[in-house]
């Protein structure tokens, strides 16, 4: 009997490590596709997750210790940046693009609005060295970390290394960011039979299926492709999007289809943060008169006009993609090794 009980406890412990979203670690929601992230190369552990989280919230990564990842990626707004159309960094410098929300990154084939970054591990180099973001360099960051006894100890624990190197730093950060899984919105609960949509939400869902889901494919609500959004180049920031990466003029002004999960909270919208309200975006896509620039064929080839009622229905569905558990998950909150919390 005792042995059985022992196994049971062990099983529970194992389960809590593998699939329990409460401890904050990565898990694969039921019926979701195979993640793209290579977990074999960087297995997520409790210690690694904590270390990544501490680094994520620590301005030590910036040149003057003023900016952390969380400066532009705030949990309560799905790790997006709501105060500003585009990100801002050291010396109050302003970047070119809207800091996107961070969630379900394990399924991303590539990163950034232009898809230029091919792996989550390497992504973090960008904000660290970009002059408009953290404005630092890897030498300085590694020097600071290697002279910080708290970090030295934690890196030793996670990677069993006396010297912190670039890949240790990047893998630690990725253990935290890859764990940011959002899959418990009302929509998810409805799909699992745990919640029922209101009539309005259901109508909105039907509209979504008819007009939006060719690009915003379930369950991740993006197909990860690069599409023309019809808003045209920004007057101030010239940004040709995907073409910067491929060098192909056909890719000019194409940007990644963003996820719609937690979209209610991740305003402003579009790659340059031009639109402040969800309604603005819905109206823009539904109304060809608003297209000042070429738009993707998925929208162009369809009659998308929505009545004022339909707009409201669609928005009420989009709000079912809000995942409160994710936005307020204690495990994602500010953490530092110096301040025990």
């Amino acid at each position, binding site marked *: 009997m005792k042995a059985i009980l022992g196994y049971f406890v062990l099983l529970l412990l194992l389960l809590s490590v593998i699939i329990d979203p409460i401890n904050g670690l990565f898990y694969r929601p039921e019926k979701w596709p195979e993640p793209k992230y*290579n977990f074999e*190369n960087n297995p997520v552990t409790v210690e690694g997750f904590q270390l990544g989280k501490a680094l994520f919230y620590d301005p030590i990564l910036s040149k003057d210790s003023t900016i952390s990842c969380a400066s532009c990626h705030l949990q309560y707004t799905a790790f997006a940046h709501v105060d500003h159309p585009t990100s801002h960094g050291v010396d109050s410098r302003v970047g070119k693009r809207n800091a996107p929300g961070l969630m379900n990154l394990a399924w991303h084939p*590539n990163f*950034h609005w232009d898809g*230029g*970054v*091919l*792996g989550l*591990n*390497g992504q973090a*180099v*960008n904000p660290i*060295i*970009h002059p408009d973001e953290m404005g630092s360099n*890897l*030498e300085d960051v*590694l020097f600071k970390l290697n002279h910080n006894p708290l970090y030295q100890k934690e890196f030793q624990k996670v990677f069993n290394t006396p010297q912190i*190197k*670039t*890949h240790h730093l*990047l893998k630690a950060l990725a253990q935290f960011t890859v764990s940011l899984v959002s899959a418990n919105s009302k929509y998810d609960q409805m799909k699992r039979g745990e919640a029922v949509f209101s009539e309005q939400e259901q109508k909105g869902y039907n509209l979504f299926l008819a007009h939006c889901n060719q690009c915003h494919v379930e369950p991740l609500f993006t197909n990860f492709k690069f599409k023309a959004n019809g808003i045209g180049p920004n007057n101030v920031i010239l940004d040709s999007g995907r073409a*910067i*990466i*491929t*060098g192909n003029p056909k890719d000019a002004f194409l940007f990644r289809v963003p996820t719609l999960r937690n979209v209610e909270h991740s305003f402003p919208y579009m790659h340059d943060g031009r639109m402040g309200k969800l309604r603005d975006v819905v109206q823009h896509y539904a109304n060809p008169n608003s297209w000042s620039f070429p738009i993707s064929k998925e929208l162009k080839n369809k009659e998308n006009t929505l009545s004022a009622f339909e707009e409201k229905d669609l928005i009420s569905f989009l709000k079912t993609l809000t995942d409160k558990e994710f936005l307020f998950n204690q495990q994602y909150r500010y953490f530092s090794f110096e301040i025990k919390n």
Partner: protein
Amino acid sequence: METLKFYLGSNSGDFILVDAADTGSFNIPLSDSILWIGMDSIANTSGKLEGVFDPLLGMYWAWNTGYIQLKLTGVLIQNHQNFPFEYHIGGYRWPHQTHGKIQLMDTHSIHVNLDELLLLLPIQSHPRIMIPGPMSKAIFTGFISCFE
């Protein structure tokens, strides 16, 4: 010339970073008469980030994942005038891949004719090239032709 760094690969897919400022990097274990200059697309996108792939080495393109295959910086002095130049040459997407084979006549030493290379660089017209593309590819092809 201030910087001359490039990736050298063996047939078995190992790479080393040759740095003209570091004579230690000149000792290359040669076992084959065929060598590769630059990395193929697989190595560029492997996401290894360690050893010769460490972004710390200043050869990593963060915003457009991949590696600078050939870094050349310096100043050309001509008719008492200074012409600074800066070339970050790389790219693995077709048709602008910077990856090429060299056949060695002698497996004991490799010679690179830098005078010839300087003549090939478009220092007057394009003193800075930092992105993949036809210009990058042309400089890379020129660099390979300087191996004797």
